[in-house]
């Protein structure tokens, strides 16, 4: 989405336009205005608060809970390679663990919420008809809605990363990343690897986001849109575990969600991530485009 300066001739009003003086379609429902409308909502605050609370809860659990098996024993004899056991190594590992915890479910739900609620909630508040009659061109409304939904999802992800890092640094120090598959990285490399993991998780969130956005256009019930998207993602996740489906699974939307593990080897292995990222982006584009085509023709009866 390109943001342009507000000056310049109207985009669609022809020379015979009967628009009121001062009306320009591309000044309607700007991303900024839409952001203000969404930022004051409680669910936005709750999502961002969760992103800060999760690392706090985990730190509290680690500090107050019984001694972890990964500390104290040291030496030989302990063969576990789990990521969770490495969470207390330092801020980098803690952040990685938080991403692992939240990428499967929490962030999926948050992405589905920000996108699935976007159009359907306007319908449920009856504000959709007033926006469209203002008039906000329909595609422009979808553009602002999708942009703000993606922006808020990305913000939540960044807040989670930043909060985890800050809280992890206070609780466990800033020792560089120890890979769950072996080896320790330099601080610079730790940052780069974590950035790759976070960026990849962000891209895979486009799948639930796209499904939820389409649902949001199809229904006037915001919870229904969010719920339907989450259910679809979960069902696809179950299908992905059925080995009997064979290579069909590689076409499933959720198939690539864990490929970020490949960023933690001695070298980043890009194969799966390249497929997963491209797949997510293409699927998101297609889902949003279908939403546009549907919304173009939809009778607004809400």
């Amino acid at each position, binding site marked *: 989405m390109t943001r342009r300066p507000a000056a310049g001739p109207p985009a669609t009003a022809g020379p015979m336009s009967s628009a009121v003086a001062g009306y320009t379609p591309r000044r309607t429902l700007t991303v900024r205005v839409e952001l203000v409308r969404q930022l004051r909502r409680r669910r936005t605050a709750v999502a961002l608060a969760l992103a800060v609370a999760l690392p706090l809860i985990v730190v509290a659990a680690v500090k107050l809970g019984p001694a972890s098996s990964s500390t104290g024993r040291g030496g030989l004899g302990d063969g576990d390679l789990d990521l969770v056991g490495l969470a207390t190594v330092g801020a980098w590992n803690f952040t990685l663990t938080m991403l692992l915890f939240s990428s499967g479910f929490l962030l999926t739900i948050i992405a589905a919420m920000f996108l699935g609620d976007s159009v359907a909630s306007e319908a449920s508040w009856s504000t959709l008809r007033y926006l*469209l009659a203002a008039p906000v*061109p329909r595609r422009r409304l979808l553009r602002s809605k999708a942009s703000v939904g993606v922006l808020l999802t990305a913000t939540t992800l960044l807040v989670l990363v930043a909060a985890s890092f800050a809280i992890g640094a206070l609780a466990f120090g800033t020792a560089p990343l120890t890979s769950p*598959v072996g080896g320790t990285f330099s601080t610079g490399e730790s940052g780069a690897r974590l950035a790759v993991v976070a960026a990849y998780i962000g891209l895979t969130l486009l799948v639930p986001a796209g499904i939820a956005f389409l649902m949001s256009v199809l229904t006037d019930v915001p919870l229904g849109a969010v719920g339907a998207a989450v259910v679809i993602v979960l069902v696809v996740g179950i299908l992905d575990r059925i080995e009997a489906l064979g290579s069909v699974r590689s076409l499933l939307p959720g198939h690539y969600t864990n490929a970020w593990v490949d960023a933690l080897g001695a070298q980043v292995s890009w194969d799966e991530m390249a497929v997963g990222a491209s797949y997510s982006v293409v699927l998101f584009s297609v889902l949003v485009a279908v939403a546009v085509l549907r919304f173009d023709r939809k009778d607004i009866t809400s």
Partner: protein
Amino acid sequence: MTLTPRQRWLAAAAAVVVLAAGTAGIALARTPTPPAALPLTIPGGPASADDAAPVQLDAAIRLPERLPAPAVVLAHGFGGSKDSVNDEADALAERGFVVLTYSARGFGESSGLISMNSPEFEVADASAIVDVLADRTEVVQDGADDPRVGFAGGSYGGALALLAAGYDDRIDAVAADITWNDLRSSLFAQSVAEPVAEAESLGAYKQVWSGVFFGAGLTTADGQVTACGRFTLAWCRAYTDAATQGTVSAESATLMRASSPASVADRIAVPTLLGGGEADSLFPLAQVDATARQIAAAHPDVPLKVVWHGAGHDGGADETERLRRLTGDWFSAHLAGGPPMPTDFEMSRVEGSALSNRARGTVEVLAAPSYPGITGDGSVRIALAGPSQQVLAPAGGVPAAVTTLPGLGAIAGAASALVAVPLPNQTATFATPPLPAAQRIAGSPRVRLVVSSDVEATDVTLFASVRVVGAQGSPLLPNGLVAPIRLDRVGPSPTTLDVDLPAVVVDAAAGDRLAVVVSTTDQAYRLPTGPAVYTIGLASNDLVLPTIAATALSTGPPVWAWPLGATAIAALIWLAVTLARPRYRDPGADVALADQAVIVEGLSKRFPGGVTAVDGVTFSVPRGVVLGLLGPNGAGKSTTMRMIMGLIEPTEGRALVFGEPVHPGSAALSRIGCFVEGPGLLPHLSGRQNLDLFWRASGRTGDPRLDEVLDVAGLGHAIDRRVRTYSQGMRQRLGIAQAMLGLPELLLLDEPTNGLDPPQIKEMRDVVQRYAERGRTVIISSHLLGEVEQTCSHVVVMGRGRVIADGTVADLLAGHGGRRLEEVFLEMVGEGHTVVTS
């Protein structure tokens, strides 16, 4: 994005081109249909020493498009059949080779008994296969009875490929993977270098691997259960000796020797590709190394390429694609005049993955100009420390450490890191200090140990390994490999051992420690039964780590990632263009009709399901009037209003606003303020924020006339409270106020007095009248008719989706003898007849 139509077409065209390129890239990467496998039966070598009749070998031949072509014979692994190499066969056939696959004797549909690649039987079968290829015109012939043929296989098939090349000089190239050099030293493994181990002393017996192997040949064709299954008697006896007593008779030793590539390695004078598995506890890299050294010693000028890959009998990393490509390239270079193949050495460094069973590890391929051997082309000595330690060899050999899970392949590879836990009292550990810098180990490390026992002990079995101990204390046993040691006897006087530890390719990070662990048990091996206590110490503090100067071959995203990424970017561009392109272009106003605020022409709406809400409605609203749209509930008033606002698409007819036909999002709608079927407000914001944000969202820049509008709302201080706390009437007034923002030229009010109490209704009536006094147009729909009578100058009466009456209030009343409008209206809609005045 503001684009001219030309730019839009260019953008769309660019997106299509990039998409097409991406699709083409993916399509090119896909393989075409391979040639069909044509079945045939080939008479092989003699059935047995006593029966000269040939065995019948079940075979299949694949013919490529271009003929004649060089041939490749593919031999399968133990327990498989000709069908287990179908994928490899298809891949080679697609590369233009005639590919012959066959089930070895005793396997699949072939007759005969398993003789473990004996020269008289299986190798004779291989020669019979080459005979068949010599008769085929589809195969390139180098001379009379000499087809151009390569021989390839893995494990059991790999040994056959090497043996066949040693016995049959018509074979022109070999590719042998994860196979044995010497069968006896593979199954009875000994890691103590000469001269300590006596030549005739057997190593530790791999009883689980042997059992898995033997078991795979037990199933007979008729389903009968027998002790020897499909094995020859001689081999059955050899196995029984080993399994019951852990011994090898002289007769069996001769058999094993004959079935080992070591016996013919000096006669292999053709280009040979040797693959070794880093995850292979059955035929470890040391076996492959021995074959490579023997061939190179006999024929130093013959091309020999050695590859240590991440797979093996224990599973390991998935390198199928790469190995298939290497094999194809090798035969292409040496049989088909393809691009020459360098004889550089390749090894894989595998990072296991603890999180994902999907990717069993990531592989980094490293290359050196030539094969340096298992001891590397350099070495690093690191100081080991640790006192002499006493270890127990438990009675009965249990409990035993678990390092590998023979026969479970892939599962074992993933599990080994998790189960390789040394048992207490059974292990002696010697560790290095934390490494000052990262250290790569490539090859077989060496350590010198001393072993003694207070009492004389016989049949001493030990297992030594190198582990990488990370900063977190989690030790990594690369591929679960251990080096078995077996000594005939150990007494009170210390025995010094030079131990060749398992060959690995692994990186230890700075700060990691290396540990040499010596254990008395391993469940994969035959263990002595008597309890014994040994003292194990270091004879030398040096841990000798082999190194190989090598450079990484593969880095960065694969080639096919680029068209894929381009496709994704194209999809995003396409989406951005779609979203930026308005669906409609404003047609512009018809000046002749611009004096009418609203014109509705033949407007109809049928909803899916067959409900006709509006049916051929026509009326017009001149500028400056207050028009009442009257009708009972369900008359189609709201649907008509929504069609005027571009919210609902008419099935037929059209609506014009100030002379301009309306479509969704028409710019002309910016001249209208509307209130349709109740207010639409953001509940989490205050009244004032709602008005402010609605104005900012509406794309207008003029003065919102907030003071006047707030006056209409009449909410007082409540305007700064959240809308969630408002009463129905307050919301209603705020909704109407929102419609009046910027004082638009046309105001559409649908049932504006719903939910208001009588004083507020009166007030609203005054507001509307004042609004219209300024020359603006107002359309009010209502089912409360008295209301319209007092406010409006014009009336359109609707019922059941149609216009029943249309005209000024005075006109309508005039035709009905001075009665009240309400009575007139009830008469009209009640009877359903149409009365059109004016």
